[in-house]
């Protein structure tokens, strides 16, 4: 009795410590930095130094200056398109993976995820040379007779950003879709077959609806990663591919206007949070109805 009495307080202390740590880490490394940049967005800049007096000027500028909202909107449209392309390409791939049996399934999955091990910058460089005027894509299209002469359609414009981001982010779409497909009980498919449904009907009525949570989280994943990216647009976007990330980046680099950059980040964060909430909402409601 006395023995358990002596261990209990130390155990309780330990669990208290673990709890504090578990809360402290996200607070110190996530919430506090977020709060700091939120506060910064209400400061101003004068002659290259930050003025620590609260102002709404940055937000007023964001909503009234004619350059920011159109670029912001175009960027959102771009990233929704990237998410759509990724889903369209990733779904068949994930479906194929899910139909495989045993060892092959995971070997192939690993193969699809290998690009994630490579440096992101190197991938952009490689893709850019593929898309260039003398690049592989143009050479292939000309050789196949699809194009008369090399085209500049694929590089240094919005198309280039769309293609590059899609290519870079497809693995992030495959994984959640594959997981949701894998989780569908085989018994449901067999039951559907027993009741006389065709393969196509089974797919439309059983597989597709049950995999939608995976699709939703894949879409929000890809969208969030795409909208936060400034390097890809900077490197392949050229003159017409100007995105919100590039404006944001310039506020921290050359302009040295951190408060305005912080305000732009807040706007971006709002969109990102919305995307995550939407992904979460669809992901969960389907899941619980099972």
């Amino acid at each position, binding site marked *: 009795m006395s023995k358990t009495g002596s261990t209990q307080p130390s155990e309780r202390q330990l669990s208290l410590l673990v709890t504090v740590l578990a809360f402290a880490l996200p607070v110190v490394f996530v919430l506090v930095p977020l709060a700091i940049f939120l506060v910064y967005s209400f400061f101003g*800049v004068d002659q*290259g130094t930050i003025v620590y007096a609260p102002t709404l000027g940055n937000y007023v500028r964001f909503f009234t200056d004619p*350059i920011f909202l*159109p*670029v912001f909107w175009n960027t959102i449209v771009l990233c929704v398109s990237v998410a759509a392309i990724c889903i369209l390409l990733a779904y068949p791939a994930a479906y194929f993976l899910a139909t495989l049996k045993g060892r092959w399934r995971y070997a192939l999955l690993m193969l699809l995820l290998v690009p994630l091990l490579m440096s992101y910058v190197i991938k952009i*460089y490689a893709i*850019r*040379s593929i898309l*260039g*005027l*003398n*690049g592989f894509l143009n050479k292939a299209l000309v050789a196949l007779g699809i194009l008369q002469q090399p085209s*500049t359609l694929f*590089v*240094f414009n919005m198309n280039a950003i769309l293609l590059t981001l899609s290519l870079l982010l497809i693995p992030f779409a495959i994984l959640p879709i594959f997981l949701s497909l894998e989780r569908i009980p085989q018994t449901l498919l067999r039951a559907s077959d027993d009741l006389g449904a065709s393969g196509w009907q089974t797919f439309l009525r059983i597989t597709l609806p049950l995999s939608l949570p995976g699709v939703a989280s894949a879409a929000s994943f890809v969208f969030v990663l795409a909208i936060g990216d400034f390097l890809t647009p*900077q*490197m392949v*976007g*050229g*003159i*017409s591919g*100007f995105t919100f990330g*590039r*404006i944001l980046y*310039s506020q921290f680099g*050359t*302009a*040295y*206007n951190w408060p305005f950059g912080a305000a732009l980040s807040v706007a971006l964060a709002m969109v990102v949070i919305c995307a995550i909430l939407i992904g979460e909402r669809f992901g969960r409601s389907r899941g619980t109805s099972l």
Partner: protein
Amino acid sequence: MGLKKAFLRLATIGLGIGLMTSAALAANLRVLAWDGYADPDWVKDFTAATGIGVDVVFIGSDDEIWAKIKGSEGQDFDVFAVNTAQLQRYIKADLVSPIDVTKLPNQKEVLPRFRDLSQVSGDTKDGKVYGIPFCFDSIGLIYDTDKVKPAPTSMSVLWDPAYKGKILAYDNGEHNFSFTALTLGYKDPFNLNAEQMAAVKAKLVELKRNVLSFYTTADEAQQIYQNNDVALIWANYGQQQVKALQKIGAHVAYVNPSEGALAWLDNWVISKGVRDNAAAEKWIDFMLSKKVSSALSERTGFGNTVTETSSAGGNDKLVWLNNVEDPLKRSDMWNEVKATP
């Protein structure tokens, strides 16, 4: 190259520690410089010739120099290297000492454009000389000799519709406003009034529509050149960029535009806290010798103030970079240029 630099740095650190023990006896000359401005063999030669020991500290950015000099109010170093655009800031903060040019015999032998320092913008204040130029590079125009005929003489070729989609420009608002102002014929490209800014902005929107892309690093420009049909490159990295392109077999040449090429110019300056002014003067004079200057150009690819180099011909007009009226404004307007459809 990186490895070589690392070794050099290690060697310098080793030398530094070795010399520290003797530092208490004889006060060494304390030099703050960029990599390539105080190579170990020159330091050795200098010590052999003058009997003055030298401790070199290398820096990697303008901000770092400022932090080191301002942090100690100039007491930690005797001589340091800084560009003309930055120098005025040090003069204003009273961190540098005026230099007696008569104590530098080699300064009389420099190229004509550097002989009268009152003509080099940024080097003097109230008739006193504060900086001795020793190293520079221009921001000219690289052109493909097979595609651009006749050879261009002005940056206005960047607006030529014949080269639409074959031009690489640099992604920096400050420089782009300055060089466009020069192309438009404005006297002081670093101090533009509102009307001039608007005109330059309109001109930059036209430029944007004529270029293939805006690059940021020399390496990036080279890669784009290899994979696309590029005829003209606005050469932010000057000679280094030309040489790198020629190395991969590109048929390119370099020209400084007739309206004036932007150029950076690094100077030796003596800090306020200098311990032995004569030793500092000897160092500067030594760096201005033909031998060191030409070796510097050979090793770095930059121009020097003593011997002719490919950075600039004798008649080329160079406009030394200076602080611009409002960097934030230029950066914002550059974003507006980029956002214009």
